[in-house]
């Protein structure tokens, strides 16, 4: 009989049931969307923060301090430089073989040389960098990767364009060097450092940094000019990392101080220090240094963003839970006459409560399922609008949403049921 009454109530009072279902669907879709976005926000913002460029710099272990120093240069020494001051270009692809290979987003090798650069208005001593502009690479694991400066210097303001992928002589020239040499896009310049080379300016860039005085040429060209075949002086790496914690900081000081268990945890977490450690493992003679300006700030901003989304999610879910349980209360109250009638024909208060609860539960469950599906859609809309990529659906969300729907329904029905239990059937029926 209970079933027949339930069916009757659900089917014949469609409008009323629909209101609850619809509202619960809205609430569940909100919960789904917020939870999904919240759980994925870390990865998404991390991707965005790649705009700040490399967070790891890989340099030879025995790099001479002086060449790295401000203004000081050891010109002429390049030709007979010891190979241990450089990294081998053919080892770069190994970056994609480390444990966290998937987190390595982009990387570019640089070969730094000092050279005499000549243009129409004269000859200047300048830093020349051999680099990958836009490189296609097949890794030892059989993957293929597209990477290079194009992806790592997104803040450059460029007049002209990046050199084409296989252009052997296309160059990017810093704005202040370009004005000193009097060159513009399409002009030829000659570069001399041991050997003589020629490049064609493909683009002039403003970076707002010291690079504005430098010249960037394709890596093979720089290697040829300097005679440093197959060698690079550093590799910039952009990796997705987990914000540092105590463990990561201790490991960064000295990985050997960790216990076996801690070491495993550290090694298998995408801390910047563990990624750096793994890079040092695969590339011989290399030291991977976290670029703190990027790495530290990334961590700070990621944590703030995640906390912000977490709080927003929790608070807005609490509010909508309140709002929905309030609505459930209102809609149960609306039915006081009908419930009074049931009590008048002999139903006990608990039977009536059960009926109301069951009815509301069925309505809200239907709404919850519909809302979950709609929420997935919402999350995708948010993902595509804001980040231009899909938000991953997390497995934890459906049980969480189900729990919320259940809790909200019960919480909403309770005050109403208490109110109904206190009704006297005679009063309800006489409309007093």
């Amino acid at each position: 009989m209970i079933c027949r009454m339930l069916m009757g109530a659900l089917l014949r009072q469609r409008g009323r049931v629909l209101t609850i279902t619809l509202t619960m669907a809205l609430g569940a879709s909100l919960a789904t969307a917020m939870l999904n976005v919240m759980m994925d926000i870390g990865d998404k913002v991390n991707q965005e923060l790649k705009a700040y460029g490399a967070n790891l710099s890989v340099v030879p272990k025995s790099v001479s301090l002086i060449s790295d120093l401000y203004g000081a240069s050891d010109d002429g020494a390049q030709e007979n430089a010891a190979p241990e001051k450089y990294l081998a270009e053919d080892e770069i692809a190994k970056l994609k073989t480390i444990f966290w290979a998937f987190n390595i987003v982009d990387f570019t090798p640089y070969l730094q040389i000092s050279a005499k650069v000549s243009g129409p208005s004269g000859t200047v001593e300048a830093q020349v960098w051999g680099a990958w502009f836009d490189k296609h690479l097949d890794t030892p694991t059989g993957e293929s990767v597209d990477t290079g400066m194009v992806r790592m210097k997104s803040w450059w303001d460029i007049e002209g364009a990046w050199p084409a992928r296989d252009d052997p002589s296309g160059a990017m020239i810093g704005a202040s060097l370009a004005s000193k040499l009097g060159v513009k896009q399409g002009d030829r310049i000659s570069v001399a450092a041991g050997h003589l080379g020629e490049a064609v300016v493909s683009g002039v860039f403003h970076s707002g940094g010291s690079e504005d005085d430098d010249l960037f040429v394709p890596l093979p060209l720089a290697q040829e000019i300097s005679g440093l075949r197959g060698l690079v002086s550093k590799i910039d790496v952009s990796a997705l990392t987990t914000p540092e914690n105590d463990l990561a900081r201790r490991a960064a000081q000295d990985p050997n101080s960790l216990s076996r268990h801690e070491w495993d945890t550290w090694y298998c977490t995408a801390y910047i220090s563990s990624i750096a450690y793994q890079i040092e493992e695969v590339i011989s003679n290399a030291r991977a240094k976290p670029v703190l300006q990027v790495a530290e700030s990334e961590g700070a901003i990621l944590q703030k963003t995640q906390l912000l989304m977490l709080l927003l999610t929790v608070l807005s879910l609490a509010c909508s839970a309140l709002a929905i349980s309030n609505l459930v209360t209102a809609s149960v109250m609306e039915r006081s006459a009908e419930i009074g009638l049931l009590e008048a024909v002999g139903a006990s208060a608990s039977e009536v409560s059960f009926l109301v609860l069951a009815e509301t539960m069925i309505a809200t469950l239907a709404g919850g399922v519909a809302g979950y599906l709609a929420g997935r859609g919402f999350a995708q809309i948010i993902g595509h609008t804001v980040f231009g990529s899909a938000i991953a659906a997390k497995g934890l969300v459906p049980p969480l949403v189900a729990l919320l729907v259940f809790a909200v329904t019960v919480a909403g029905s309770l005050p109403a049921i208490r109110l109904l239990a206190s009704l006297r059937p005679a009063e309800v029926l006489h409309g007093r």
Partner: protein
Amino acid sequence: MTRRRMFFKMLTYSLLRRRSRMTVALLSVAIGATVLLGMAAVSYDIPRQMGREFRSYGANMIFVASGEEALLRVDAAQRAAALIPPDELIGLTPYRYGIVRVNMQGYTAVGTDFDQAAKTSPYWSIAGEYPKAGGEILIGADVAEFTKLAPGSSMTVTGRAEDGTRFRLDAKISGTVRTGSVEDGFIFMPMPTLESLMGSSGVAEVVEVSIAADETELKRIVSEISREVPEISPRLVKRVTQSETTVLSKLQALVFLVSLVVLVLTMICVATTMMTVVLERRKEIGLKKALGADNRRIAAEFLGEGLFLGSAGGALGAVFGYMFAQAISMNVFGRAVTIDWRLPLLAVLISIAVTIAACLLPVRRAMDVEPALVLRGE
């Protein structure tokens, strides 16, 4: 008794004597307004708050000397800094470079103001302490490794002053700095120390400035400084400003979109609750029509109720919404939220509008029903 008083009497008693219903309705409006104000305040304040967090990326503007000059005057930089709104200026750090030798090995010595450096470059990882006294220095991590010197030990720095005379400084290493880039190879010392070694003062190669402002504001500051202080040429650090604009605008869009979704859903919730509460009174509407009330009169009564519920719930919600935004701001950023005084006003107005709309919709539907049907049909 005037009719107006009767109107208010009916209104008051409808609210007072139907307490449980009205509590439900008031609560729903209050929740709606809480979310409304909370979300609006958060999306309004986040870009500013988040912008401050982004200052951890370091200086977003540098001053260099204009023209062919290599050095700029620090007092000119101070004049330029005075043009930046004080609440936006996070830090201003001058850097002056010199060549020094330690054990015949050449290094770059940098003179700076460490108090300011800690503000413009918060990412510097310091082992030990910043130099305090004149004879103390801070060395880069690579220098420390190369020289095998640790904080607390001393280092003899030699070199030539600008006029060619030799100098020698026995300095105490107060700490090491690690950044992962060029700073790791530098030797830092307080500006007066470097100045006394070099034999000239009041100049710097570059001044780093960290300003909590968006790109438009930064560009305005750049053009103002170029105009007012011509001997200085301010430059934006594109890598920082450009990237901040990209990331921040996405974050802002995210918070905005999320707020919008939450808002729409909450408002629908409020509207449905109001409708449910009003729909319960179909019989009352029918009775009033049977007694000869015209549609306008009935609408006015519900309008009055809606106005009250909307403004009371809205005001209540504005208070809670402020707490909502404050809780988020304090927990995430550790700073109090700033709320534009118009926001609470707007929240109350929107609450009133939504409540009234949600009241009148079902009332209109009930009024369209002929009074007789309402009376007879239970």
